[in-house]
């Protein structure tokens, strides 16, 4: 990354601390408990104590003031350790709320809506308050989060951010493949005081989809790295036919291909760091989420194959990473959702414009 040397060092120290925190608190027992729906109190307390949820909130607003690149790496590391908490969502929600002029809040903050089908609306004011309408599906930790940052359209069609306390909306429990809560929240009639409603930053272009896709891309890059680490370790340990299976060319080639998928997903995730805050961000998010999502599926397949039956057990921790990959690739728009957007754009512009789209000149 092109950042000043001092910032680079800060980043290394911060990431190192976060890594140790994740290592200490994300034990196999903690993961299994979270899998059963138990909120990991100790982990979240440590995460909050370290200030991680406020990573992207500027220092003058009471946050940590990390750069986008550092925050992306932090999210990648949290996913590498398969942190069973909505840290990525909370980092983004706090950043957006602060950007909109709001004061950061304690506790986990989730986001809604998380897919292109759900639309939430904000009714005109009555008695100094407004009420929300609509339902949001697949809201991460929707029932457990302290707050939900909701993007809703007001009566004029303008996008507003509303910070809604947890429990205000009726929730229906649902889980993704990793047993992370993905609840349905019914916002009909939920009252929001004017102070908790702010114009959404212009860069959102009226949607949380690109931002959410960027989160999931960083997470997939992190969890893919974990999968490959597990597979490399296992291939070097597991002995068959008198030698470690890592010595067989068939296994070597599978893992070399997996390394290609990780490199591609990481490159895609890196591209979002540079695109942050530019007009090309939504397009970059489409490219990155669809490319990383495709790589995630391939990575999971290869790493399971290398682990064979052992990796198919509850006992081996590989599934904590792969079940997340299988979930995250479909969240905030699966590959086809974003690919269709890219395809429609480049077709509308014509073949000769493809190149300037790729070099990033078309978006500026």
């Amino acid at each position, binding site marked *: 990354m092109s950042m000043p040397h001092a910032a680079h060092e800060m980043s290394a120290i911060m990431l190192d601390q976060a890594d140790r925190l994740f290592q200490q608190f994300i034990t196999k027992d903690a993961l299994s408990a979270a899998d059963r729906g138990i909120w990991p109190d100790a982990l979240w307390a440590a995460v909050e104590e370290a200030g991680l949820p406020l990573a992207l909130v500027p220092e003058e607003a009471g946050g940590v003031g990390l750069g986008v690149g550092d925050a992306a790496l932090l999210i990648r590391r949290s996913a590498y350790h398969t942190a069973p908490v909505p840290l990525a969502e909370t980092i983004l929600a706090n950043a957006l709320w602060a950007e909109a002029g709001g004061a950061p809040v304690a506790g986990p903050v989730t986001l809604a809506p998380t897919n292109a089908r759900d639309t939430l609306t904000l009714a005109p004011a009555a008695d100094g308050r407004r009420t929300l309408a609509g339902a949001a599906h697949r809201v991460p930790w929707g029932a457990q989060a302290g707050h939900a940052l909701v993007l809703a359209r007001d009566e004029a069609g303008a996008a507003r951010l509303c910070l809604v306390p947890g429990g205000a909306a009726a929730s229906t429990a649902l889980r993704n493949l990793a047993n992370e809560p993905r609840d349905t929240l019914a916002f009909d009639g939920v009252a929001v005081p004017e102070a908790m409603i702010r114009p959404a930053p212009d860069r959102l272009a009226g949607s949380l989809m690109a931002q959410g896709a960027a989160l999931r891309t960083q997470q997939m890059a992190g969890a893919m790295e974990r999968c490959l680490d597990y597979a490399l370790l296992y291939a070097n340990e597991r002995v068959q036919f008198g030698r470690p299976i890592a010595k067989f060319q068939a296994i070597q080639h599978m893992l070399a*291909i997996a390394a290609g998928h990780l490199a591609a997903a990481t490159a895609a995730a890196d591209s979002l760091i540079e695109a942050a805050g530019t007009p090309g961000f939504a397009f970059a998010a489409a490219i990155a989420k669809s490319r990383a999502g495709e790589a995630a599926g391939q990575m999971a397949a290869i790493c399971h194959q290398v682990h064979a039956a052992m990796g198919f057990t509850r006992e081996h921790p590989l599934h904590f990473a792969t079940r997340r990959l299988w979930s995250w690739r479909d969240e905030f728009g699966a590959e086809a959702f974003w690919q269709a957007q890219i395809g429609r754009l480049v077709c509308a512009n014509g073949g000769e414009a493809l190149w300037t789209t790729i070099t990033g000149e078309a978006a500026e």
Partner: protein
Amino acid sequence: MRAFRFEALRLPPEAAAMRAKVREFLRTERARGGYASHRTSWSTFDPEFSRRAGAAGFIGLTWSPDYGGHGRSNLERFVVNEEMLAAGAPAGAHWIADRQSGPQIAKHGSERAKRLILPRIAAGECYFGIGMSEPDSGSDLAAVRTRADKVEGGWVINGAKIWTSNAHRVHYIIALVRTSPPSADRHAGLSQLIVDMGSPGIEVRPILNLAGAHEFNEVFFKDCFVPDDMLLGEPGAGWNSVTGELAYERSGPDRFMSDIRVLVELIDHVGGEPDERQAVEIGRLVAHFATLRRMSTSIAGLLERGESPVTEAALVKDVGTAFERELPEVARRLVPVEPSPDDQGNLFSEAMAHVTLQAPSFTIRGGTPEILRGMIARGLGLR
């Protein structure tokens, strides 16, 4: 898995200036009707085009002006190359000389070799072939048997090279030869020699490819003399210099843009309102393309810093050439086409014809995926 380096890289401002310059040149070239971009690429041999590109200052960018170069960064060279590829420019005559032979000579060559050869490469007048493969040495490059024996004032080569692209029309090849007998260390005793193709003792026999085109050849050496100052580096250092050369050969945009004009023609053929399936599949190809470009750019940055990212280059070539192979296969599922090389101006059909017949070479030239994956596995600590 921290073994591989793909750091983000922002192209410097001078690269943008270079991009504008080369685009203007290519616009002029196309306007003059010099080439049919839907069926030309970096393997299309066109000396006229190369001379004009040299005269305009787009060859030999990275070496010193003392040797006819332009003293520019590797990132500017990267931009020139990707613009040539994007435009489908017929850059095949000078491509190898500019990509690897020239940089090798600039780095390891004698003063006389640099003075004699580099200015002519930069002028777009001097072309190179790669003398690595032999009849019994393909993927197993260290098995080369062509030998060079020390004589007064130089070396005498005996043996044969094969699959030598353009040997019948280039001025030089850089031959990897054995300069001392095989030993326990297979990589020892190899050297690289710059061989003037006009020298006595060289016979070139054509090998037609499956499309009937004459690109590669077999090259026989019988007591072919090469002067001392045409040796690259020290005798016996050939393995190191050849692997360093491969980082340039494998990481560039020519490893994922060989058939990019098929994607351009596909988009135009589908038109402005694709159906859902077309939009999804084209979007997927574009996402792969954009990501590969980023990986390749990152390696260009490492090369610029003087590093030799051999494993990362292998990785880009493996992922990149898989994309090149897949592209026409996806295209034919989206738009029915019976490709023909002379389809009366149906550019998509003609591009598909050209690429379908070229595609098998994409995953062979410059190292097969099977070899590349072995290198990557070594980088992962598996061997």
